[in-house]
């Protein structure tokens, strides 16, 4: 049997992640480059503040998202429906939180899908990772949409037994200054530690 290799330990990203690594459009998932067509689906804007203990805004976090396209497909060999995936959507974005602790993304609303692993329907959702100095490993969680019938059956949403706690993962419609005019805007604050702490999952 092949020799099993143990994953390299994580270490904090520290405070000096190069600014040019978080490019101007890396937080806009609706297009690949100037030449490509726009991704299909409803354009949405997601923004919020990141807080550390004592509800102090945490700037200089590196935030990444991963999500399926508007039809719930991934352009990835593990997705049996990959042939239908939107060629103009990569599903990944990155942003660093600004001096006030604000992070934001422009993307399309993800579709739900029937999950081949758990056999359960996945409600529309976006996986999010936060890295920061002081975080020895990334923290990960999943964002959900309000008013989705599929939320009640979603195996990840329901992995949090306390209803009041899992509500903290539901995006809230809100008029946000920085949202593009043609996007539906949602807000979700992320509390790393303290009152109203965001529920995070084992990575």
């Amino acid at each position, binding site marked *: 049997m092949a020799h099993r290799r143990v994953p390299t330990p994580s*270490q904090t990203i520290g405070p000096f992640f190069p600014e040019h690594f978080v490019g101007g459009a890396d937080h806009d998932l609706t297009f690949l480059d100037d030449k490509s067509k726009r991704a299909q689906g409803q354009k949405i804007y997601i923004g919020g503040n990141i807080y550390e203990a004592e509800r102090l805004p945490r700037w200089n976090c590196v935030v990444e998202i991963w999500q399926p396209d508007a039809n719930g497909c991934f352009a990835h060999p593990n997705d049996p429906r990959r042939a239908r995936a939107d060629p103009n959507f990569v599903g990944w974005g990155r942003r660093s939180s600004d001096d006030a602790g604000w992070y934001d993304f422009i993307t399309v609303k993800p579709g739900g899908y029937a999950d081949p692993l758990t056999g359960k329907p996945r409600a529309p959702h976006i996986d999010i990772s936060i890295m920061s100095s*002081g975080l*020895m490993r990334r923290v990960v969680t999943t964002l959900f949409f309000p008013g989705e019938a599929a939320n009640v059956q979603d195996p990840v949403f329901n992995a949090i037994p306390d209803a009041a706690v899992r509500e903290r993962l539901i995006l809230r419609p809100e008029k946000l200054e920085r949202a593009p005019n043609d996007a539906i805007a949602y807000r979700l604050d992320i509390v790393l530690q303290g009152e109203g702490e965001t529920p995070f*999952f084992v990575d």
Partner: protein
Amino acid sequence: MTPPDRYEPYDEPSQPLMRVDGYRESQLRTPSRPLYKRPATLTEITGPLNLAKKLKVGMNDLSRIKQGAPRAMGQLIWVTGRLLDEDAMPVRGSVLEVWQANAAGRYVHKADSGNPAPQDPNFFGSGRCVTDREGRYAFLSVKPGAYPVPNHPTRWWRPPHIHFSILGEGFMSRLVTQMYFPGEPLNGIDLLLKAVPDEKGRERLVARWTPMMQLERADVVGFEHDIVVRGHRATPMGF
């Protein structure tokens, strides 16, 4: 070759503690409540495979601002290694990012503007590449200097190190880590390296020195550093 489709939880002692004594930021930012277990679904076993389209790659010389420009102060180093999964299979086509301090221990970053160590106008300080068919990456740089953590009660100095960010082949193989140099006395007092409870785990963060005659050029000191990201491919190996 298909990407991994099976991810197991990390083996805890081989990964760092989240709250580290003496590292204040870790105590302000680590969630205080236990993490919830979630089942892996399609979203977790997939990930972006074509990021080299979105992120500019081909920057593997940190030692100068651009080709032909004068090189940075310090000792030239050649850092190479392979990106592997848990079955020792190469992880191909993965975006890999590195950044480090200059030879005096100062970063090219606005957050390091209070550092009294000198800047080096010829030092680029960061790089991004894609792993090749063998999973290999390589960077030319200068040896990073150690630097003191400001106002630390125990005079903690960070040993020379290079930061790595690896996108991997899926959401679950994302890894951010640091590479340390062999034989550095400061390795023994580093709170971040020591945050990994398992000695073998700490050893996995330290590069190996490359014998001089194995290098293709005489003007560099070489280090070899393999990195393993989480993930197993469907076909069990060696049965």
